[in-house]
C-alpha cells in the first residue's frame, strides 16, 4: 500500500468522525496539501449524502396476494428468547422453591406433616430426615415465605397466560384425545391450586400448603409448556 493510499483509506473514517483527535488533525493537514485526496473526500461526501437521501421504492409487482395465501395457513406459535428464558427461570425458581420447602424450608414442623392430598411422595421422607426446629431459621419468617410466593405471582400469571394463549391458538393442530387429556389434567391441577389457595387463606403460615401450592403451579406451567410445544410445527 502506497503512502497516498494510506491517507485515502482514512477518508471514510474521517468523514464518519471515527478518528482520534491526532489522526483527524493529521488527515486535515494532508488534505490541505493534497488536491487528489480533497477531491476523493468530496466524492465520498456526495455518495454518503446520496445514500442517506434514497427513498423507498415499492416492488414492481403486487406481492400481497402471495402474502395473503400464506396468511391463511395456521399461525406458527413462537416465543421470543426472553419469553422462553423467563419461563425456564420461573420453572427453575418454582422448582427450587418447592425443593427448599420440602427440604425443610417451611416455616413450621407441624405443618410439614399435614395431610398430603396430592402432593409428592418424597415429602414425608424428607421431613423425617430434617432436624427438628431447623425450619424457621433456614427460611426466615413466615412473612418472608409469603412474600416470596407473592413475588412470583405476577411472573407466573404472565407466563401461564402466554402459554394458554399459545395453546389456544395452536389447539387445532392437536388431536381431540390429546386436547381432552390436557384439559382434564389442567382442570385437576386448577382444582388443586384452588384448594391450596383456600386452605392457605385459613392457615397462611402452613409450610406444607405453601409447598403444595407452588408444586401445583409448577405442574400447571410444565403441562402448559409441553402442550404448547406440541402445537408447534417441527
Amino acid at each position, binding site marked *: 500500500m502506497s503512502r497516498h493510499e494510506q491517507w*485515502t*483509506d482514512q*477518508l*471514510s*473514517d474521517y468523514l*464518519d468522525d*471515527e478518528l482520534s483527535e491526532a489522526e483527524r488533525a493529521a488527515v486535515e493537514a494532508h488534505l490541505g496539501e493534497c488536491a487528489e485526496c480533497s477531491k*476523493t473526500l468530496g*466524492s*465520498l461526501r*456526495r*455518495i*454518503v449524502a*446520496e*445514500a*442517506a437521501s*434514497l427513498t*423507498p*421504492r*415499492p*416492488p414492481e*409487482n403486487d*406481492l*400481497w396476494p*402471495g*402474502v*395473503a395465501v*400464506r*396468511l391463511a395457513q395456521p*399461525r*406458527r406459535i*413462537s*416465543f*421470543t428468547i426472553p*419469553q422462553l428464558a423467563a419461563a425456564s427461570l420461573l420453572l427453575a425458581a418454582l422448582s427450587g422453591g418447592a425443593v427448599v420447602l420440602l427440604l425443610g424450608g417451611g416455616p413450621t414442623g407441624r405443618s410439614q406433616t399435614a395431610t398430603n392430598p396430592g402432593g409428592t411422595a418424597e415429602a414425608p421422607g424428607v421431613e423425617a430426615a430434617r432436624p427438628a426446629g431447623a425450619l424457621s431459621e433456614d427460611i426466615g419468617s413466615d412473612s418472608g415465605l409469603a412474600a416470596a410466593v407473592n413475588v412470583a405471582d405476577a411472573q407466573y400469571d404472565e407466563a401461564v397466560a402466554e402459554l394458554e*394463549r399459545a395453546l389456544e*391458538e395452536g389447539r387445532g393442530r392437536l388431536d381431540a384425545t390429546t386436547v381432552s387429556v390436557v384439559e382434564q389434567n389442567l382442570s385437576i391441577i386448577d382444582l388443586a391450586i384452588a384448594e391450596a389457595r383456600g386452605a392457605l387463606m385459613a392457615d397462611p403460615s402452613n409450610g406444607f400448603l405453601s409447598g403444595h401450592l407452588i408444586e401445583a403451579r409448577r405442574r400447571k406451567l410444565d403441562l402448559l409448556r409441553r402442550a404448547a410445544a406440541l402445537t408447534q410445527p417441527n
Partner: protein
Amino acid sequence: MISAVVTFIGDGVLNGTGQKSDVALAAAGDSSAFERLYRAHVARIHSLARRMLGNDFADEVTQDIFVRTWQKLSTFRGESAFTTWLHRLALNVIIERRRSLAIQRTRVADDPIALDLATVPPSRSDLRVDFEYAMGQLPEGAREIFVLHDVEGYKHREIAVMLQIATGTSKRQLHRARMLIRQQLGEA
C-alpha cells in the same frame, strides 16, 4: 388530549380515538388490518431487501418478512414503534437469508474470476449510472454494510453485532463500498 388522539398516526395505524390500531387488530387475526399495514410498509421493506440481497431475492424475502410479521405480531409489546420493530424483524429475516446463501457466496468469492468481475466497473463506466444500480453492483459483503451504514443509518458497532463481524471489518468494507461506487459513478 389532542396529542393522545394523534398518537401513532406516524405509524399509520390509528383512525381515531377509541379505535384499535391496525397492529392490534392484525395481532388478533384481522387480515384486512394486516393488509393495511403491509401497504403502508412494503416499499420500505422491499427496498431494504432489494438493496441488501439484490433483485433476485427481494420479492420472495419481502413476502417472507410479512408472513413472519403476521406470525410474530402477538409478541409485539408496543415497547418500540411498530415501524422500528418491523424493521428489526425484516433485518433478521434478511440476515438469515444471507447466511443460508453463504455457501453459494463463498463459492463465488473463492473464484478469482468472479472477484475480478465484482470489483471492475461495468464497461459502460463512461456513463453516469444510476446510484441504486451502482449499489447493486457492489460485492455482497461491502453492499450490505454500505446499505446498513449509509442508507439505514446503523453504527459500525451495531452492524458488527448484526453480521457477526469485527468493527474494523465493517469500516474497511464501508470504505471499499464507497470507493467502488465512486468508481461506478465515474468520479474516480
